[in-house]
């Protein structure tokens, strides 16, 4: 059974359809990459799947049940969200930020129990943030802050992770690290939806890609099917080339396409 399934989603703001008839499914064991030019509607689609944005048409199901029939708290136990801006408004300790991942499991006056501590310890280990626990999050570098927030996501124990451009401002070491964590989460039976701009990370780490443009779904499928030079030229307006190097095939943007509007 799919974890999250959104069908024919349509979101209209100020008379403009930001997302228009897009369907996508998150299934256990898969990392799905959401790619497309700026303003394509990727973030809005993700937020619609989380129930943060109201759908104007279409439907969304979580674990086979209509999303609206889930309470906010139940939803938060099933899917964890990493927004583009992960900055904290207060100088919190990283350890406390990660512990906040357990909030969906705690009732008002309930203190975290051994189960919660276990989930937190596991998340800390997966995201390799042992050294950062005593640091204040507002003083962390971008890559460190992203790992701490990812640990918070993992601590929820939610089967589905949804991350909006998690590696956009990170150095390559941290980019690989974050993507490996997502791949590992999928390998252990979870599902991941991740918005990406880097096509090579999309090709290497995603099992499936959804390419969006102007609110529409252009094509959905395996990376090799989606990342074709003709399609990328049409959507991004760039010329690309696949390059083979030993056991790697890389997609290289070579420049803007001349006749693009």
């Amino acid at each position, binding site marked *: 059974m799919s974890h999250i399934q959104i069908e024919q989603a349509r979101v209209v703001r100020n008379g403009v359809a930001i997302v228009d008839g897009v369907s996508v499914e998150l299934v256990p064991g898969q990392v799905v990459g959401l790619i497309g030019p700026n303003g394509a509607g990727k973030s809005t689609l993700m937020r619609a799947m989380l129930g943060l944005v109201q759908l104007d048409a279409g439907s969304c199901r979580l674990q086979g049940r209509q999303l609206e029939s889930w309470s*906010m708290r139940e939803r938060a136990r099933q899917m964890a*969200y990493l927004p583009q801006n992960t900055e904290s408004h*207060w100088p919190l300790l990283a350890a406390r930020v990660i512990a906040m991942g357990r909030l969906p499991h705690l009732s008002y006056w309930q203190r975290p129990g051994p189960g919660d501590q276990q989930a937190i310890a596991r998340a800390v280990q997966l995201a390799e943030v042992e050294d950062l626990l005593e640091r*204040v999050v507002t003083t962390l570098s971008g890559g460190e802050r992203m790992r701490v927030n990812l640990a918070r996501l993992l601590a929820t124990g939610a089967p589905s992770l949804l991350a909006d451009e998690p590696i956009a401002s990170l150095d390559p070491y941290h980019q690989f690290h974050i993507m490996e964590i997502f791949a590992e989460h999928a390998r252990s039976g979870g599902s991941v939806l991740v918005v990406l701009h880097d096509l090579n990370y999309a090709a290497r780490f995603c099992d499936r890609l959804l390419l969006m443009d102007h609110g529409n779904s252009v094509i959905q499928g395996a990376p090799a099917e989606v990342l074709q030079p003709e399609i990328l030229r049409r959507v991004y307006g760039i010329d690309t080339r696949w390059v083979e190097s030993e056991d790697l095939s890389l997609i290289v943007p070579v420049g803007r396409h001349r006749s693009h509007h």
Partner: protein
Amino acid sequence: MRSKPRWWLLPFLVLALLLAFLLDLLSGPFPLKLSEVFSSGARKGSVDALVLLEIRLPRSILAGLVGACLGLAGAAMQGLLRNPLAGPGLVGVSNCAALGAVITFYFGFAGLAWYLLPLGGLVGAALGVMLIFFLAGREASVLGLILAGVAINAVASSLISLALNFSENPYAMSEIVYWLLGSVADSSIRDVAIAVPFMFAGWLCLLGSGRFLDALSFGEEGAQSMGFNIGRQRAFIIVGVALTVGAAVSVSGNVGFVGLVVPHLIRPLVGAEPGRLLLPSAIAGAVMVLLADAAVQLLSPQQELKLGVVTALVGGPFFLWLVYRMRHEAV
């Protein structure tokens, strides 16, 4: 920045609260002999016992309650607006509450039922919080908050003056000073009784919002994705602030800067967590107002200063320093 939670904070604050309460109880224009109070006892109706029970005790209780309300409301508002400069006085909520209380008081409604005076303050405070939230709440910007606060404050305080002038009150000028600067002098056990139910209800709303305020550190969508019904939680806090500030202001006027200063002093001691900030801020607020009230009585025993003057004398320069520091951090 030292930002770790301190285990000694709560015991320390409780001890400070006891000492501040005793200090405030024992200070006043009439020198009390404690031996008199306890040896002769209240049953004999000695002057000392009478002063202590009828004048000093209600005043000190009220000072503590008002301080707790303002400290707690300040901590909750800073968490809700994700803004360290939010506080009920600075953004005009206290003056809106004072306006509501002034209208019920001077147009004769307060005499109709005991709960109408705090209710007037509550309605005023609720309107104030909602105004500040809709004018500046969404994007957590310092500038927007301060501009909205200045505007709300100006409107509310001029309406207070206008209402008092219209009320044909011969003491309008001194009453304006009372409502704008605040005081717990001459309060009776009746004042305590009418404010307490509202204050307790407000404390429940605000102390129960800690987890939501923690989640709100990551923005509105962050909190929603962590399982919080943002509309309902926000309403809880707005109602809680309205109850606490409305009740406090309607029995003591606008005692400024407590809700701004106290959460700031406490924040580094609780690891900056908005939820853990709530209870210590309430206790520390009570300590601050009790100390200020004791200072009022010790500094000028004959002609009493207004309580709000003392809190502003401490809070004003603190606020200046805060603005200065924030400018430096922003650069």
